[in-house]
């Protein structure tokens, strides 16, 4: 069996507004559109993903937050309706997805071997969170590639940021080992917004783009700084700045997907490609890609 590999990683944020704006048949809510630059960014990312022809997508979502360890979806076929408890007016999505349980179990086992608390989610009635679904829909609306869904363990909030981030780095290394042993071509998805300062009231028409702009100039400046560093391949500096970034930009990357993905990819010096940037209720969202096939 050939050695498996991570062929690409994407920063793929999950505001449900993007699904709402696209009006796919799976989502009950209807819109007039909105957030086009971000949706066009995802169009470019979709094209790139299509060319990569991965066997599996692995996603780490902050909206499946778990208290006791790192959890992995462990049911081969999950379906149902996922209503976002925060934005139920926008996101009521009928999902139907296939899980690569074999790889999920391997990731879970590697995580345990690395000393992490980890477990498989085997309940067939489980409602997959809107972060996982939004990112997966936006990057691959065909839903034809099996996935591995990973929870966001609460450790960066419950423990210190350093301790929590350390767990995510360990989880990333474990994920990489499992992928290599699997022989599969894997794409990683970091379902995170950057600056997470946001408005506290919703316009009557959520997609009224005259109301959309960065909520915080400080947050915006952090977004641009991080994007530029990633575009230059300066991941080490980004990780040095990580605590300050999290603190000053209230960055959602604190929840773990970002260090998990970078760790799994070996903290690459490969420049990341920016597919696009935009705000959603004032938060900063970048769609970015590390394409190791193209870089080779």
């Amino acid at each position, binding site marked *: 069996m050939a050695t498996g590999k991570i062929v690409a990683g994407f920063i793929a944020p999950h505001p449900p507004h993007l699904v709402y704006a696209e009006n796919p048949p799976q989502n*009950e809510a209807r819109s007039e559109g909105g957030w086009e630059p971000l949706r066009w960014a995802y169009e470019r990312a979709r094209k790139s993903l299509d060319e990569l022809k991965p066997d599996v997508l692995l996603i780490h979502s902050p909206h*499946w*937050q*778990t*208290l*006791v*360890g790192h959890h992995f979806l462990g049911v081969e076929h999950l379906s*149902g*309706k*996922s*209503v976002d*408890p*925060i*934005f*139920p*007016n926008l996101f*009521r999505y009928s999902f139907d997805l296939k899980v690569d349980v074999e790889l999920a179990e391997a990731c879970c086992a590697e995580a345990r071997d690395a000393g992490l*608390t980890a*477990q498989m*989610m*085997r*309940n067939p*009635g*489980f*409602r997959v*969170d809107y972060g996982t679904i939004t990112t997966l829909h936006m990057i691959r609306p065909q839903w034809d590639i099996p996935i591995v869904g990973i*929870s966001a363990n*609460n*450790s960066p909030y*419950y*423990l210190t940021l350093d301790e929590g981030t350390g767990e995510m780095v360990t989880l990333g290394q474990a994920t990489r080992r499992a992928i290599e042993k699997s022989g599969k071509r894997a794409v990683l998805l970091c379902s995170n917004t950057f600056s997470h300062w*946001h*408005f*506290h*009231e*919703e316009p009557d028409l959520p997609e009224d783009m005259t109301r959309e702009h960065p909520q915080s100039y400080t947050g915006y400046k952090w977004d641009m700084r991080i994007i530029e560093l990633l575009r230059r391949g300066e991941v080490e500096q980004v990780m040095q700045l990580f605590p300050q970034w999290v603190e000053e930009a209230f960055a959602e990357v604190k929840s773990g997907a970002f260090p998990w993905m970078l760790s799994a990819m070996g903290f690459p010096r490969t420049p990341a490609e920016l597919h696009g940037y935009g705000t959603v*209720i004032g938060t900063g969202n970048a769609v970015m890609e590390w394409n190791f096939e193209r870089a080779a």
Partner: protein
Amino acid sequence: MAVVAAFLVPGNPLPLLKPGNPPWKPLLGGFARAAEVLAAARPDVLLVYSTQWIAVLDQLWQTRAHTHGVQVDDNWYAHGDLPVDLRVDVALAEACIAGCAAIGVRAKGVDYDGFPIDSGTIVADTLLNRGRVPLVIAANNVYHDFAAVERLAAMAVGAATEQGKRVAVVAVGGLSGAYFDTDIDLADDRIRHTADDVANRGFLAALGGGTDSARAALGDYAAAASPDMGMKHLAWILGATGGFAGATTLGYGPTYGAGAAVVQFDVA
């Protein structure tokens, strides 16, 4: 007086899912006693605030008349499913939404098939209410502070009073927030830190002393035990009741290391 009963109850679903587990029996016993008190009070509606229904934009109120189905908890899915058969007093919920405008809070209703009612509300409806009385359920907007929650609760009671309804107030949330973050034998569950246990017991005693005693103890308790959402759910009780003369702890115990209690407040 509109408020005929008030309770603080835990929202962790583990005692509901595994009722035979010995460390959780004091909490279940507390729920049973509270359920009897609640039934005797003959409320028309339960005003429920659960720390587990998180909102970030606007103040959300449940306005779906009947939610029926099964929920699976994000964390405790391995221990079983949570049946839901929950009824909402839509007229009062709509009045609360209208009342929010008067106190400067933007609000809206939530009326969607498949909406994931939070586990805490399900626990309270099942173990305390036993599905008998319709609810009004307010979300926990994480950007609302203690005082804002008090104002919301007072507004909700005012709206109920205008409709001539007898109200029971239910705050759903935990005490000390430190849970075990590794696998444990559930039969050995306990309050994770001795200091938290001491702080919890002290705070419950302070609640017993009434409003002034509770308010005086709150700051130190929050600093000592990092309670669930800073005890914002107590603000729901304080705002709704306008103050209580005392409180009785009907049950106290751990929920995977975190503190939990069933408390009945003296509102007469």
